[in-house]
């Protein structure tokens, strides 16, 4: 019986062996993928960092500490390949059982059960706990099995999860190297896009036990390091591409988080900035007079910063902006860090800003940051994801200064910068508020975030304490590319809405509140008095004029009477004379006088 069936001629398995170490020490040149094709992972940010995904037909090493997200990333890579790229995949699980991995991944909604029927194969390769090891062994048996499986399902992608587990069983480092080489060569020979994960602290930890992975990092074409650290008690996850042969990539650490549908990686800013769209379109601020002050409103895609002490109506201004955006039919995301989303709606209703209706019709999405916990990086990734999902054109963050309290400063600064860049690239109008510390000496309360430098428009809200009153003042500190008013206006909140009023300056002091009201009233009274006086004068003049007109009329009438009288007199005189002459003729007739002579006589008498 002994030896039966063992005469089969081995294939590649014999190629690399202890004795052949010299041979394998030669660097193995992979059959270079000439087209430089990439295998997308389906993680947007990651694909952006690597310029399209993992190197196609080559091997990638994924290193990371416990709980850093190695398994999720690799599984997502397989799922994306199987569902979107027509590349079935195999998952070799050395550590966790495939059942547990599938159950854990169920929450991401990847429909693993469906995929496992045909396009996704899980191989449980956990070393059994009762396994006894005696002498040297190799992985050629497993590779032979995988080969059969690959042929059967035409797999193009393969993941070896937690390779370190099986390597740990090998007696010496030479054997470990040999098996890693075997695996690597096998992957290349089969033109598979391979992803090998291993537990390691990346390049930070380089103890003797890590040497195998250090060696692997040199061997593979692409190495990605996942890092999970805690800064000031706040968890931060970072991802870094350490190397990527034959391709450019973003070399910086990129934050990521494990979201509802897998990994969410925050892509670089450099690439985003290039395609930033510049628009000269104006976006109303929601307050008519503020638009006038700004020469028409904010610019589309601008970053607006509103700073102020607590209670200076920062949220109200944000709310007015959000309401105006929704009224125009633009999708808006309102992220509130201080209060609950519903509280914001209720509070803003008191100043006539009705956001509830837009929440109902889905145009406005309110996100309360109480539900998002973590580092500034986490916030950034979450906000970006939410905004993208919501297709937001306007984004409100109230207040952003909360970030400076979470995580370290340098990080927070870069987060604010990246958010500004990102929103610019997407053409999203960003409005953030920043709380000024009451006790702070620096007037620039946003210093820690340095967003004041990045903001295009900076509106400052403050209190003016005067005559026992606190009044809100609004001024525009800067507004790039816009002619803007230099005046301080008084911000008035009422249940009818938000309005801005001119502030009076008297004796070098700006008057607000009651004093402004008094001043206004005094002016009003003055105007009224002047009005009345003018009216009186006019009435008087009217009367005089009327009187004169009447008199003129009387004289006219008198004149006419006189003329009539005169005419009458003339006529009376004429008729008298007529009568007289007629009377004389008659008399002559009666006397029978000479007609000719006496007539002359009579005429001379």
């Amino acid at each position, binding site marked *: 019986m002994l030896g039966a069936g063992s005469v089969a001629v081995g294939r590649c398995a014999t190629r690399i062996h202890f004795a052949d170490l010299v041979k394998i020490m030669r660097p193995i040149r992979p059959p270079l993928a000439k087209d430089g094709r990439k295998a997308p992972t389906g993680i947007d940010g990651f694909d952006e960092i690597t310029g399209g995904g993992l190197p196609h037909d080559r091997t990638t090493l994924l290193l990371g500490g416990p709980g850093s997200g190695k398994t999720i990333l690799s599984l997502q890579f397989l799922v994306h390949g199987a569902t979107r790229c027509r590349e079935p995949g195999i998952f070799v699980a050395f550590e966790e059982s495939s059942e547990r991995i599938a159950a854990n991944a169920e929450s991401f909604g990847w429909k693993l059960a469906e995929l496992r029927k045909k396009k996704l194969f899980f191989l449980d390769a956990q070393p059994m706990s009762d396994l*006894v090891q005696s002498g040297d062994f190799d992985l050629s048996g497993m590779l032979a099995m995988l080969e059969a499986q690959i042929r059967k399902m035409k797999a193009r992608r393969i993941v070896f999860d937690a390779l370190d587990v099986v390597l740990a069983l090998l007696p010496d480092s030479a054997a470990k190297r040999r098996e890693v080489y075997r695996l690597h060569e096998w992957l290349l020979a089969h033109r598979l896009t391979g992803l090998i994960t291993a537990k390691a602290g990346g390049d930070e930890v380089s103890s003797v036990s890590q040497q195998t992975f250090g060696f692997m990092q040199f061997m593979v074409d692409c190495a990605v390091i996942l890092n999970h650290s805690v800064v000031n008690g706040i968890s931060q996850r970072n991802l870094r591409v350490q190397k990527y042969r034959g391709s450019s990539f973003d070399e910086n650490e990129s934050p990521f988080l494990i979201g509802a549908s897998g990994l969410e990686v925050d892509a670089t800013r450099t690439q985003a900035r290039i395609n930033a769209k510049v628009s000269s379109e104006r976006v109303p601020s929601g307050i008519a007079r503020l638009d006038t002050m700004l020469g028409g409103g904010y610019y589309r895609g601008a970053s607006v910063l509103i700073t102020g002490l607590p209670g200076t109506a920062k949220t109200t201004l944000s709310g007015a902006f959000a309401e105006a955006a929704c009224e125009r039919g633009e999708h808006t995301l309102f992220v509130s860090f201080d209060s609950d989303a519903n509280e914001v709606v209720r509070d803003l209703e008191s100043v006539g800003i009705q956001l509830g209706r837009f929440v109902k019709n889905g145009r406005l999405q309110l996100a309360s940051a109480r539900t998002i916990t973590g580092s500034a990086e986490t916030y950034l990734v979450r906000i970006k994801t939410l905004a993208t999902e919501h297709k937001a054109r306007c984004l409100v963050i109230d207040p952003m200064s909360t970030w400076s309290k979470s995580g370290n400063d340098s990080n927070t600064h870069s987060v604010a910068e990246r958010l500004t860049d990102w929103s610019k690239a997407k053409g999203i109008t960003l409005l953030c508020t920043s709380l000024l510390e009451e006790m702070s000496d620096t007037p620039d309360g946003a210093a820690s975030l340095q967003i004041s430098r990045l903001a295009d428009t900076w509106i400052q809200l403050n209190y003016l304490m005067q005559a026992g009153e606190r009044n809100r003042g609004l001024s525009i500190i800067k507004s790039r590319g816009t002619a803007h008013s230099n005046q301080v206006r008084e911000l008035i909140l009422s249940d009818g809405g938000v309005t801005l009023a001119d502030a009076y300056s008297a004796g070098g002091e700006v008057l607000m509140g009651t004093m402004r009201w008094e001043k206004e009233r005094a002016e009003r009274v003055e105007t009224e008095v002047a009005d009345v006086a003018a009216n009186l004068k006019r009435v008087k003049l009217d009367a005089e004029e009327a009187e004169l007109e009447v008199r003129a009329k009387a004289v006219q009438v008198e004149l006419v009477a006189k003329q009539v009288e005169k005419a009458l007199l003339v006529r009376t005189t004429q008729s008298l004379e007529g009568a007289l002459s007629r009377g004389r003729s008659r008399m002559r007739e009666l006397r029978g006088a000479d007609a000719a002579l006496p007539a002359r006589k009579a005429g001379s008498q």
Partner: protein
Amino acid sequence: MTRQAKFKFRLYVAGEAPNSTRATANLGALCRSHLPGRYEIEVVDVFREPRRALADGIFMTPTLVKLVPSPIRRIVGTLSQTEAVLLSLGLEAVPA
């Protein structure tokens, strides 16, 4: 350990890989000296029968599985450390 107990082994090998060849030789030697006449060895070549190895959950080669007597035991490697192998198989080292 009763003298009569018969042993059934299954050895998974990867073709003629050096480790596998060595394991085959080591197992033969061990059986001949410790279990003369009461052993049975089945050799499975994973290159020839990958599906079977897959079904049996064999990932490292060579792997020796002791099927009978129970309990089932698995030993991975060239079986070069005879003492350890005997111990895990439930056999005592034969006094020299």
